[in-house]
């Protein structure tokens, strides 16, 4: 063995060197392949998401016929209209109220399901998830029928208890209530599954330790459950805030923005101006007003997701 090494040092060293050169080549080839594998994704994201998003900024600076550059004209026009201020107000009311109630109902139902013996949990979870599984446009159609001015099944019940009919969709304030109610109904199950998953990930020992220290149920919730779930609650709330702000289906189907434009949110107002009235630049300007709130939420979500990633390791 020693002899061989002395006689053919180069030959024995070579195989040790070769893989390194091969490895370098392999890595270079690998990064080309890696890039090619990502190429379809890059094309879709760049061509159908980033380009349209930037294009909509350009579009919003044109006049209706798209023949002339008018700078911020569309934005200043919108901000000078009372209707648009109402849209901003209603979008904020709609999103904040709906997210608040979705988060509360989700938290409560997640705890209730988590209290059950593990045998029955799956069944209950499946039942409570139904609203979230039906395509929103179709379940909204069902709600619309429940709110029908002459045939409302809710009003039938209210009459049965001796009350008066509620103008669910024809009175502006009741209409605002109704669209929020439907959004809460649709979105609460999403919070339920997120919180349920988070509850399951809290180590049982923490509760046992708290119990030994004499903590009651409320204290255990406040000092064990909440801190452990804080991050997932934040991510879910911010994510839902984006989705709710951008919601279109419910308002479009149930009220189409009426009565008196009081239930319009950004999405439906952009649709009305951009597609129905054919003023694409003005519509683009309306939907761009969603951008700041989306950007702020996105930054916080990203931070939360990263932190969560580090915690898990």
């Amino acid at each position: 063995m020693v002899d061989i090494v002395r006689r053919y040092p180069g030959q024995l060293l070579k195989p040790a060197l070769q893989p390194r050169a091969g490895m370098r080549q392999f890595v270079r080839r690998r990064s080309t392949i890696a890039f090619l594998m990502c190429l379809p994704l890059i094309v879709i994201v760049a061509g159908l998401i980033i380009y349209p998003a930037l294009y909509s900024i350009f579009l919003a600076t044109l006049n209706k016929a798209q023949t002339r550059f008018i700078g911020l004209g569309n934005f200043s026009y919108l901000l000078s209209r009372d209707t648009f201020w109402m849209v901003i107000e209603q979008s904020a009311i709609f999103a904040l109220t709906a997210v608040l109630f979705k988060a509360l109902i989700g938290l409560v139902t997640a705890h209730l399901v988590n209290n059950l013996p593990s045998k029955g949990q799956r069944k209950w979870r499946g039942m409570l998830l139904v609203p979230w599984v039906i395509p929103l446009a179709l379940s909204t159609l069902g709600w619309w029928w429940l709110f029908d001015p002459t045939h409302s099944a809710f009003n039938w019940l209210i009459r049965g208890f001796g009350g008066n009919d509620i103008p669910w969709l024809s009175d502006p304030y009741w209409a605002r209530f109704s669209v929020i109610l439907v959004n809460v109904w649709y979105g609460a199950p999403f919070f339920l599954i997120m919180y349920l998953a988070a509850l399951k990930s809290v180590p049982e020992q923490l509760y046992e330790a708290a119990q030994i220290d004499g903590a009651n149920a409320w204290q255990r919730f406040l000092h064990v459950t909440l801190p452990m779930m804080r991050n997932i609650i934040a991510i879910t709330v911010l994510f839902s805030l984006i989705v709710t702000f951008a919601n279109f289906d419910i308002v479009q189907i149930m009220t189409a923005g009426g009565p008196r434009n009081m239930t319009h949110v950004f999405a439906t107002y952009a649709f009305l101006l951009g597609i129905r009235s054919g003023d694409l630049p003005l519509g683009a300007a309306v939907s761009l007003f969603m951008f700041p709130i989306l950007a702020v939420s996105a930054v916080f979500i990203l931070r939360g997701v990263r932190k969560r990633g580090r915690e898990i390791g």
Partner: protein
Amino acid sequence: MTAATAEYARASGASLKRSRRWALFTSYFFLVLFAIFFLIPPYYMIVTSLKSDAEVAHLASNPWIIANGLTLEQYRLLFRETDFLIYFKNTVIVTLCVVAITMVVSVLAAFSLSRMRFWGSGILATGIFLTYLIPDTLLFIPLFQIVRGLGLLNSYWSMVLVYPTLTVPFCTWIMIGYFQSIPKELDEAALIDGAGHMQMLLKIFIPVALPGIIAATIFAFTVSWAAFVYPIAFLFSADQQVLTVGTVTSLIKADVYKWGMLMAGALVAAAPPLIVYAFLMDYYIAGLTAGATKG
């Protein structure tokens, strides 16, 4: 142990059991209330779809029950006398294409982003997540202009083009998570055995991450099936329409709302996602919660 402490232990055990039973009872009580709230609309839709037109229109009768006999007339009308089956066919074509495109694109990209490095791959992974947060209601107006420029306005093929914006970012995101959880030793073993990248992906990554693949497929399926903003903006004739918009807008003929038939249409249109969930809910929930909780 003295008799006193034994007595104390038994008493506190009994009270613990009693308080636990009480907690369970209140849990069930409130869960039933929430379940009623969550299930009212689907229940009412089913009831309405099984009634005759006369009973639906009758104001005095109880709307919550079927009093004058159950009938499938609404479903017969739906299939025989409306364009519902055309919408259904269009939706199936669009959804199948979108799911196929989404899965190929996102699995390839996720494999590459979770295992191989290239210039800008880190930024790309974060960028993917950010683009997922850009909603369709922000993109539909510029996309309208683009789709019109391509001559695809009022064609359901434009849906095959634009739906991936809804599905690809999130599917890639959850697939990256699943692929990253596969131990590196597995690919090293495969490389030593002389497997190429494609073999590694097909023979190791896809089988091992199958739950993730199923979750991503269900996500792409439900999102394409339920999409509403793009079709309502880009499609206007009945032969090109998809289920969601077709049911909501076109089934309403003249000024008469055929509520029984509308509800029948909404239920049939909602059935495929409901059936998929009934069988694969666990995969989907695992994928969704994993996607949100870890990178």
